[in-house]
């Protein structure tokens, strides 16, 4: 895949954030008036372990260019152990996507606490930049699900 | 720290001229302690003082050349002069962290393999502490300096900036005191041991240099020292020449050699 020359490319980025840490961290980055790109749209989930790998595949199929999942730091899960399961599931999913030849930088798992507003903003900026560099997601998108 | 007994050794220009003792005793002591020091060919002056300015690249190149020589030899780099150590260590620290600086330096020098701070840099004292070990040094002492009350003078160069030098606690260092204990003498703790003697301005501003060095020497004397030791030719000169103090000042390598029974009267000028 060639790097997209079209400078107008605005990636669609879906961010799943756990309600207790990362979603609060995202709120904090807002409260502190930090910046990250508008491309990032957050979906609130009670815990990162609520995120079924199907959701991530679904997002790609429907045209997302990047999917990031954020949860509490290991050991800090509001539900004690949820993020540990997340870590296993997502590690295997990412490995499988890689195995299928999907670009690695399109998916990411990050631990962001409720106190890490700055980390949240920086992570989103970084991730958006990385996805922008990759260009549009063509390998997993279903053209029939596309707009227009 | 790796336990490799062969090190690349950088003496620096002053050790070739005014501070031959510092050099000679460092070499003979290392040999006695089972350490091989290999001097790189064609080394250059370290630059004397580290320029912290980010827009100064040329002044950092000679230190980088030395660091690269050590890297290419596959050995860690050992220095003994505090000033050289400070310059080389700061250069190494900055080039490892400041990508912009590393890029400029490498393109300026047209390096085939860019240098990014991979060489480990040790001061001779660190060699004694971390490679040989003060316990082993103590065992090797044949002529313990019993009853001598020795004040270690660190000055500024060995300890600061502490992030880059990372040798010891910058406010309460122990490496030289432990060294003094290892050779059988008694260390004297005094507050000015990590304050500047005014070495850099010793040529240009005698008045300030003597004020600073006097303050160091008075502080050491006040706490009951018989002598002061240092790792720095500039400090040695300044403390001896400008402080007006009677207290003798020696290089630490000299008393090391003495304790190891290596000191020859003819080299002691």
């Amino acid at each position: 895949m060639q790097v997209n020359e079209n400078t107008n490319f605005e990636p669609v980025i879906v961010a799943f954030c756990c309600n207790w840490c990362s979603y609060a961290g995202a709120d904090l980055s807002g409260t502190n008036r930090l910046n990250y790109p508008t491309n990032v749209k957050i979906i609130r989930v009670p815990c990162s372990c609520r995120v079924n790998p199907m959701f991530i595949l679904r997002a790609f199929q429907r045209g997302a260019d990047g999917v990031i999942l954020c949860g509490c730091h290991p050991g800090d899960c509001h539900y004690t152990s949820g993020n540990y399961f997340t870590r296993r599931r997502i590690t295997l999913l990412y490995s499988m996507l890689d195995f299928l030849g999907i670009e690695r930088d399109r998916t990411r798992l990050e631990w962001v606490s409720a106190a890490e507003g700055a980390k949240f903003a920086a992570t989103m900026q970084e991730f958006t930049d990385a996805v922008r560099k990759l260009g549009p997601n063509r390998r997993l998108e279903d053209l029939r699900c596309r707009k227009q | 720290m790796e336990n490799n007994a062969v090190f690349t050794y950088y003496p620096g220009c002053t050790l070739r001229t005014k501070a031959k003792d510092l050099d000679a005793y460092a070499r003979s002591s290392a040999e006695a302690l089972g350490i091989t020091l290999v001097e790189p060919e064609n080394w250059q002056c370290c630059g004397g003082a580290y320029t912290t300015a980010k827009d100064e690249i040329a002044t950092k190149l000679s230190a980088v050349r030395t660091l690269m020589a050590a890297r290419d030899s596959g050995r860690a780099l050992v220095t003994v002069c505090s000033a050289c150590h400070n310059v080389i260590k700061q250069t190494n620290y900055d080039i490892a962290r400041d990508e912009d600086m590393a890029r400029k330096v490498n393109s300026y020098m047209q390096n085939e393999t860019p240098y990014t701070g991979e060489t480990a840099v040790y001061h001779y004292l660190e060699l004694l502490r971390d490679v040989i070990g003060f316990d082993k040094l103590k065992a090797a002492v044949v002529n313990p300096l019993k009853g001598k009350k020795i004040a270690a003078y660190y000055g500024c160069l060995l300890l600061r900036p502490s992030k880059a030098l990372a040798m010891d606690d910058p406010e309460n260092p122990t490496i030289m005191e432990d060294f003094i204990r290892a050779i059988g003498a008694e260390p004297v703790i005094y507050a000015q041991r990590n304050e500047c003697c005014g070495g850099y301005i010793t040529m240009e501003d005698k008045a300030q240099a003597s004020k600073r060095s006097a303050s160091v020497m008075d502080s050491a004397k006040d706490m009951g020292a018989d002598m002061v030791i240092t790792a720095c030719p500039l400090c040695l000169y300044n403390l001896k020449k400008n402080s007006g103090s009677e207290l003798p000042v020696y290089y630490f390598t000299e008393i090391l050699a003495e304790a190891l029974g290596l000191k020859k009267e003819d080299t002691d000028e």
Partner: protein
Amino acid sequence: MQEAMINKAKQLLADGTVNRVMGWKRGEFVYDITPAVFETAEEIDADFVCDDFTAANVSKYLVKESRKEGKILAFLKPCDTYSFNQLVKEHRIVRENVYVVGIPGGPKLDAEKIKAKGITGILCVKNENGTLKIDTLYGEETMPYYEAILGKCETCKSRKHVVYDELIGEEGEVITAEDSGRFDMVEKLENMTAQERYDFWREQLSKCIRCNACRNVCPACTCENCVFDNPASGISNKAAADSFEENMFHIIRAFHVAGRCTDCGECSRVCPQNIPLHLLNRKFIKDINAFYGEYQAGEDTTSRAPLNNYDKDDCEPSIVHERGVE
């Protein structure tokens, strides 16, 4: 072997240990073998078969059969016992209702591979010192035996039965990954570039016609209601309509059975399009082994499945980035 099994089946039916027998029977052709349930000695004498083509894993059928009245006899090859155990562990098979007789495993033969040699009208096959002698309607044909072996048997993982009530024949050993070479192809793919991997899988998965054979044969796919058939799951999709097969179906299926798949190889065996689906499952198995320690699904009925388990020091997903080729 077939003889011994038939005698055993009839004996157990006669003494009332079981009231049914799970085995195989022949279809239209000698190589057209399907699992079947027999209730009488007569049925067994008439149709029971166990030969070089009886490769089908019968454990999945026991999910339903074990819930019926009475006990059923099941002949399980070593690979089938793993599937059986896994289903017992998941409370899908009622263990008390099955009498397990372990039988020796393969290698079994792949009729497609014989037919690919232009040999048709197969009546009977026989291995003679590495040469496969094939009686056909048109006379005797031969081919090298190893060329006719089923793909799943080429990389056999175990000749040992992990569960049985009784054993016919000799017990074998577990085969190491190095000896079986079952991860070799996965490894080869891992070492390709991302583009090559993508191209490989596009080519393979685009062949999928969504016949659902892989799902229907899979012993791990025993859901009461499959997510692909369930409109409420949000991913229901019953036919090949868009790129769903390439992008979603097989990944989701592989993920659903991850940590539960025993690597029985049935999915690839039944695929009419010859898609190497087992490679997806093996990729998960290989990753699980590498990330979380060796784990063989079905080896026992008590250990926690790797995806329902965790360790505080598990690796982060970034390990994927640190390894292999982009």
